[in-house]
Structures are given as structure tokens and as C-alpha cells.
């Protein structure tokens, strides 16, 4: 049994890596139809493997659980790779934003199915008015030169607090209009049909991402001015603060439905493979296009040399803030997808020690390699949770804990053998970016040949 399981797990990991490679290869084809066909096909294959045909399923519940966890982890880790790998800001705050996204989205859908639209209204209005306010303040501040960061931060904070209060007030006012349509859990109203719930779920995921991004903007503004090590410590503090707030969400925060340290139960399990795949691919495509744009080059330039980047006319603080906000947006989306897959959120999941997981994945896959991060996310979940945990559990009840000894050893060996990470700077197909960048490097120009 163990041998069969071992082989099966290895085959699965290899199949997934091959699957990802094939998908990236198809997406790199010039024709838009092949790209679309590739996406639909990739979605379809897994969907088929997850469907029950005559009592046979290629991927059982356990495997599909791993798949969803891995896709959520991919989004979080890609966000962290943008912040740490591409922009060079050592951040331990990613897990906090992941938790914020998970709780925010779960709160929206939980309240919705229980006949309360305030979650969606408040966060939706907050995303709309809040973003407009922050952008407005930003536009206004550009008129002045040389404003100290803390002064502009104070203005942003005041703006955010006022819009937050406005969003809560408006949400409470508008709520009675919607509640009759929602019904209750026992008698679902017209806005609680399965299709409507999926729409709300998609909105909730995006709003959770925006909420995490807004928080990261306010947090990042003063903190990103710190040097890299101090920034790491500050973001670690952020993760711990978020975790503490989660544990006390029913006492010091007005969210009794989150049930504090006991964990939030009854979140509708709305994540399907379609939504997980959709959001994962959206994150991958957005990230790839961002990295290969001139903004992406400016992000890398800031990592390489801040002085030179400044001399090029790059707004260094702006580039750092942007990558931090976008990275947190991805984390928020990942958290939201995770929450609706698992259906239960416990503050223990968002404990700062677990926050090192995305960091390890990014380093393992290779800093600044999107391919590495994606492959490592899937490999990590399937190897550690899927294979080692089951194998070790057959050696005794306490044995699975040994995987926390085995993976640091793996990491140690990798760092000794391949310090640049599993993939270094290798990118697969689509992730390589547009043609002129992929053109073979160091190829002599014809003009040069004739000159000789």
C-alpha cells in the first residue's frame, strides 16, 4: 500500500508539473484562439478528473482539496514574489493580508446567506469610495513637492477613516432595501439562488482583494520607508497584529459571527474548480503582464539599485508601494478562494509561523521566477501535505510532525546545491514575456560580423 501510494503521489506531482508546463507553452502561442483553447482545455481536463463518472473519480476529495489549497497558495506566493523577488522588499506580512482577504470575503458571503447584505454593501462601498478618496488625495498631494511621508500618511489615514465611516453608515442605510430579497438560511430569497450566490462570491473575492490592497497601501506608506530588515520586522508585526485581531474578533472587534479564537464556521463552500482556476490564471496573467511592462522593469530596477533607479526618473517610493499593494491584492484574493473552499476559518491557520510558508515557497522556487513560484506552490502542497503526511501517518500518530524536520532539510540541501532556487531565473513559455526579451541572448548581430 505504501509503495503504491508513494508511486501514485509522485506520478501526480509529475503530472501537475507537466500540466503547468503545457499550459504555459500553449499560452505562449501567438494565436489568441490557441491561448483560449489552452485555457479551456486546461480547465476541462481537471474538471473531468474531478467529476464522478460511473463511480470512478481520478482525483478524490483529498486530491481535490490539495488542488484548491495549491491554487490559493500560488496566488499568495506570486504576490510575495512580486514584493520580495522582483522588488526586493523582504516582507513577512503576506500571511496577514491572506488572512484579511479570507476573513473579509467569508464575512460577506456568510452574512449574505444569513439574510444580511451589510458585508457586501460596506466593503463594496468602501472599495469604491475608499479607492476614489485615496486616489484623489494622491492627485492633490502631487501639487506639492517634498512632503514628508508621515504627513501624507496622516492625510491618507484621515481620508480612509472618514470614507470607512461613510461606507458603514451608507451600508446600514441601504441594508433594509436588500434584506427582504435575501430571505434566510431556511427560506432562501430570490437573491440567494445558487447562481446569485456564485455572483456574490466572485464579488466577495474581488472586494476582499481590494480591501487587502487598501490596508496594505495605508500600512506600506510609512513602513516602506524603512530599510529592508526593519521592513521585514514591521511586516512580521503586522501579521501578528492581524492574528491577534482575529482571535479577538468577537470581543474587541464588532464581528460576533467570526467567533474569535473558536474559529468561523458555516462559510458557504462556494469555491469550485472554475473559480479557483479563474482567479489563479487571472493572477498569473496580470502578474506576467505587469512584470514584462515598463512598470515591471522599474520594479526590478528599484531592487537592483535605488540610486540608479531614482536617477532614471523612477519614483522609487511609488514603485515599492505599488508592488506591495498589488502583491497584497493577490494575497487577499488567494485568502478569499481558500476560505470558501475550506468553509472554516481558524486564527491558527493565520499564525505568523505558517506565514513563512509562502516565503519558503518563493525562495525554493527561485526569487524572481514566476515559474518557480507556481511549480513550488503545487509541489509543496502535494509533496508535503499530500505525500509525506499520509506516508508518515502510517508510522504512528505523532510521525506526521516529522515532516517539519524533513522539509527544512530539503530546503537546506537545496540552498547548498542551488542557492538561486529550483528554477533560478528560468521561465516557461508564456511567463517568459514578449519576443524581444526572449530573443537568444548574446547572439552576435550581423552588422558586427561584417565589421570584422
Amino acid at each position, binding site marked *: 500500500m505504501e509503495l503504491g501510494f508513494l508511486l501514485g503521489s509522485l506520478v501526480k506531482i509529475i503530472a501537475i508539473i507537466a500540466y503547468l508546463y503545457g499550459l504555459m507553452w500553449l499560452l505562449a502561442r501567438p494565436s489568441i484562439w490557441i491561448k483560449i483553447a489552452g485555457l479551456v482545455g486546461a480547465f476541462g481536463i481537471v474538471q473531468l478528473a474531478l467529476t464522478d463518472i460511473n463511480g470512478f473519480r481520478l482525483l478524490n476529495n483529498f486530491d481535490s482539496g490539495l488542488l484548491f489549497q495549491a491554487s490559493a497558495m500560488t496566488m499568495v506566493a506570486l504576490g510575495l514574489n512580486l514584493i520580495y523577488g522582483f522588488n526586493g522588499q523582504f516582507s513577512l506580512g503576506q500571511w496577514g493580508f491572506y488572512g484579511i482577504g479570507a476573513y473579509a470575503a467569508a464575512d460577506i458571503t456568510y452574512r449574505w446567506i444569513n439574510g444580511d447584505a451589510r458585508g457586501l454593501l460596506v466593503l463594496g462601498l468602501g472599495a469604491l469610495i475608499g479607492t476614489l478618496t485615496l486616489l484623489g488625495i494622491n492627485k492633490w498631494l502631487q501639487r506639492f513637492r*517634498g512632503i514628508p511621508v508621515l504627513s501624507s500618511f496622516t492625510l491618507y489615514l484621515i481620508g480612509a477613516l472618514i470614507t470607512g465611516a461613510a461606507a458603514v453608515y451608507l451600508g446600514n442605510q441601504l441594508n433594509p432595501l436588500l434584506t427582504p430579497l435575501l430571505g434566510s438560511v431556511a427560506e432562501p430569497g430570490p437573491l440567494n439562488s445558487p447562481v446569485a450566490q456564485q455572483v456574490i462570491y466572485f464579488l466577495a473575492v474581488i472586494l476582499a482583494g481590494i480591501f487587502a490592497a487598501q490596508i496594505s497601501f495605508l500600512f506600506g506608506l510609512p513602513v516602506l520607508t524603512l530599510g529592508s530588515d526593519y521592513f521585514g520586522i514591521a511586516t512580521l508585526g503586522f501579521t501578528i497584529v492581524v492574528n491577534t485581531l482575529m482571535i479577538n474578533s468577537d470581543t474587541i472587534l464588532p464581528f460576533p459571527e467570526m467567533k474569535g479564537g473558536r474559529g468561523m464556521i458555516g462559510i458557504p463552500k462556494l469555491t469550485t474548480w472554475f473559480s479557483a482556476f479563474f482567479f489563479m490564471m487571472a493572477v498569473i496573467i496580470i502578474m506576467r503582464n505587469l512584470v514584462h511592462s515598463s512598470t515591471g*522593469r522599474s520594479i526590478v530596477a528599484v531592487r537592483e539599485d535605488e540610486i540608479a533607479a*531614482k*536617477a532614471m526618473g*523612477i519614483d522609487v517610493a511609488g514603485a515599492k508601494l505599488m508592488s506591495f499593494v498589488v502583491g497584497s491584492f493577490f494575497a487577499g484574493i488567494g485568502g478569499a478562494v481558500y476560505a470558501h473552499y475550506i468553509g472554516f476559518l481558524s486564527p491558527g491557520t493565520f499564525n505568523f509561523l505558517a506565514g513563512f510558508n509562502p516565503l519558503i515557497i518563493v525562495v525554493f522556487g527561485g526569487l524572481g521566477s514566476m515559474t518557480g513560484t507556481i511549480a513550488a506552490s503545487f509541489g509543496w502542497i502535494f509533496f508535503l501535505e499530500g505525500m509525506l503526511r499520509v506516508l508518515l501517518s502510517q508510522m504512528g500518530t505523532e510521525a506526521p510532525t516529522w515532516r517539519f524536520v524533513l522539509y527544512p532539510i530539503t530546503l537546506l540541501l537545496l540552498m547548498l546545491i542551488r542557492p538561486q532556487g529550483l528554477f533560478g531565473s528560468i521561465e516557461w513559455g508564456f511567463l517568459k514575456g514578449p519576443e524581444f526579451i526572449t530573443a*537568444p541572448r548574446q547572439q552576435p*548581430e550581423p*552588422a*558586427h560580423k561584417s565589421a570584422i
Partner: protein
Amino acid sequence: MLLEVHNLNVYYGAIHALQGISFHVEEGEIVTLIGANGAGKSTTLRTISGLLRTRTGYIRYKGRDITNTPAQEIVKMGISHVPEGRKIFAPLTVRENLLMGAYTRNDPNEIQRTMERVFASFPRLKERINQLGGTLSGGEQQMLAMGRGLMSRPTLLLLDEPSMGLSPILVEEIFRIIQEINQQGTSILLVEQNAHMALSIAHRAYVLETGRIVLSGTAKEVAENPMVKAAYLGV
């Protein structure tokens, strides 16, 4: 007057690095600041390009006050800074490095045209277009840094120690190209330790000593000054 600097006082914490520096650059000139290590030459350039702030005085560019303007605005106005020690982006290709120099510009055709002009000045960069910046030799890196500085189409180019760590032949080549760039209409403010080379191509020169300007004049006058001869030219 293209650039006018008046009474700059710049501090690094408690250290008074620039103690009331005033000078100017006319359109089409090569002006050089020479001086020993720690005289404040690089600090001056960094203050002009917005990397450092001054406590007193003003910087005027084309008659407009640009004191303490953020660096990205300064680049848009047409001042380009080629920092000391080249500071090229090692994991980016030569082409990507040059594109970074045009970060503040938007029209891709115009950028392409500027890149062709840079390649005309530095043919060696064209040969290495897809090579990673970090794999270039020291001289090529200096050329890349200067080419990158030209990509924003500056009216005023600030060059910080372009001869640093280069062989004498390469130094000659770099200085020849600096003159060429100047003849094409770009004014240049050059900071150098290699006083001899700098004075040979500059129109005017200022000598800095521990944060003060101690001597100024045409390059010829400065080169013939006995104090400069003894201290910097080793004659």
C-alpha cells in the same frame, strides 16, 4: 543661463558636506568640478538631480526654481544623472537598461529613434544589445550608463566620475564621446578626479575643497594655476 546653483548647504546628518556652493552652467558648455575625495563633487550632482536635499540656497534650471524637486520630476525636465560607479541594472539586458533610461518618455517610436542615436555614439552597445548588463566589461558598462543617461534626451547631462576604474585608452575614448555628445547640443556637468583629462575637454572648471569652491575660471586658467598644478595635475 541653463543651470544656476546658489549657496547650497547640504548635510549628511551632522556632517556639513557642502558649505555654500555657487556656480552656473551655460547652454552648450562642458563644465567640470574637480577636487579630491570627499570634496563634495558627487554630493553636488546628487543635490541637483534631486537625490539629496539642500537646507539653504536654490537651484535654477532654465530660469525655473527646481530646489528639492523629486528626482523623477527633474528627469522629466531634461536633467539626466549618470551616477558614480555606473550602477547599471545587472540582470537586465543592454536593451532593457536603455529602455529604463527612457522610463519617463512614452512614445515608442521616439524612444527607438533615441536608441539608434545612442547606438551611433556607442556602437559597442549595439553589438551587445541582448547581453545582460552585468556581463559587460567595465568600459562597456560605463558606456551603457552614459547611453542610459542619454535615453531621456537630456539638455543637461550630469556625469559622475566616468573615468573611474578604466584603462587609459578607454578613458580617452569615453572623453572623446563626451565631447561628441556635447557637440550634438547637450550641456555637460562633469565631475572628475582625473583632473588632467577633465580640464582638457572642459570649457570652464571649478575646484572644490572640503565643501567649498576655492577656484573657478576657464579650463585653461584653472589648469595653469600653480596650486592646481601642484595638487591635482602632479606637475
